[in-house]
């Protein structure tokens, strides 16, 4: 894979600590996506994935951050969004992508849905240390 570079160092970090921060992250996602030139359908997919993963931070880790950055490989440009927390982490990073798997009493399709809505999703997690999820959508 080609090397991914940040564009112009433009990057914003938002905290996720209270319910309304999820809305703030969603609006930031909408703004970034439209500004980069994503059309409505893909903008809505990005907004929804952000909503999902930011909500997971609140629900499963308590608090964390969301970072938005424009990226480029030389040939293509895209949006990268990073969700980081120091919550309980995950033991099995494959199992959480199974539709319907939830340790809370919710639908359990957020992570797998986010993966389907974005072009790329990488998850890094260590039990007791926290979780970092990186998603990308290319223009």
């Amino acid at each position: 894979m080609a090397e991914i570079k940040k564009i112009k160092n433009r990057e914003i970090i938002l905290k996720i600590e209270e319910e309304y921060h999820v809305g703030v992250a969603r609006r930031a996602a909408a703004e970034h996506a439209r500004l980069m030139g994503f059309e409505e359908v893909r903008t809505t997919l990005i907004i929804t994935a952000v909503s999902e993963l930011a909500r997971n931070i609140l629900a499963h880790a308590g608090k964390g951050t969301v970072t938005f950055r424009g990226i480029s490989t030389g040939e293509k440009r895209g949006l990268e969004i990073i969700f980081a927390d120091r919550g309980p982490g995950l033991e099995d990073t494959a199992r959480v992508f199974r539709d319907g798997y939830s340790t809370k009493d919710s639908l359990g399709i957020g992570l797998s849905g986010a993966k389907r809505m974005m072009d790329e999703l990488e998850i890094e997690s260590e039990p007791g240390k926290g979780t970092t999820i990186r998603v990308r959508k290319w223009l």
Partner: protein
Amino acid sequence: MAKKEVSNISGVLVKKEKEILDAWIKAQADLPAFQKGLITAKQLEEESSRFLKLLVKAVAGGNLEDITAPEYDEINKSLADLSTSRASIGFSPSETTNFILSLRQIFIRILQKEFDDRLDTLVNAGLVFADLLDKLAIVTFEAYVKGREEVIREQQKSMLELSTPVIQVWDEILILPLIGSVDSARAKQIMESLLESIVTTKSSMVIIDITGVPAVDTEVASRLLRTMQAARLMGAESILTGLSPQISQTIVHLGVDLSGFVTRASLRDGLELAFRKLKLKVTKAEG
């Protein structure tokens, strides 16, 4: 610091109350908040004199350090009230804390006169007073922030109430137009008011229109599902309308199963379906 010295210092405050007050009012009159006309000269005088009286009373026993002690109760409360009211009439945070901080210079000058032959006592007294004023300034600042938070909370509450009307459009037909994000506090309120309206209006059809919802994530979707299930248990069928192409796509990507419920692209289509199910017909009047 020695007990005697402390009582010396608070003694100066008591003795020089009038002098301090005059200098303080003069100093405050030069501050921008007063220049902007946010409060009158009379108010400034009254508030300053009341505060200084309370301060003199609080320090009279020799406690210049612990503002959580009971002798500071009155002053803390009056400071908090003052900040809250100043916040509401448009004082900025720095203008509000300046009320206290502008005392510092004045104290120092008075102490200088009083202890000009005893440098040790002067330095100590200056530090003790500066420290006390800092603590009181923090009290005003915290109260100021609390006042603002109160305003925000009130606004949030009124937005919650504003945004979820349940409209009876015809006998037995309710419309719930959702606008904005449906987060948990609102979702709960929406569900309750919808179920209540179903009962009071004896409705059998509910149209939930999500044209104004920017994104449907799994949380919103599951709340919608639960609301429609609850309506069904109460004898009302739901029609979900206003699914834009992008929302439909996200629902498919998410894998939310809406198959048990009727959906329509537009509110118009949903209303038409509701009429048909109730065997009602809308026709053009003749002639």
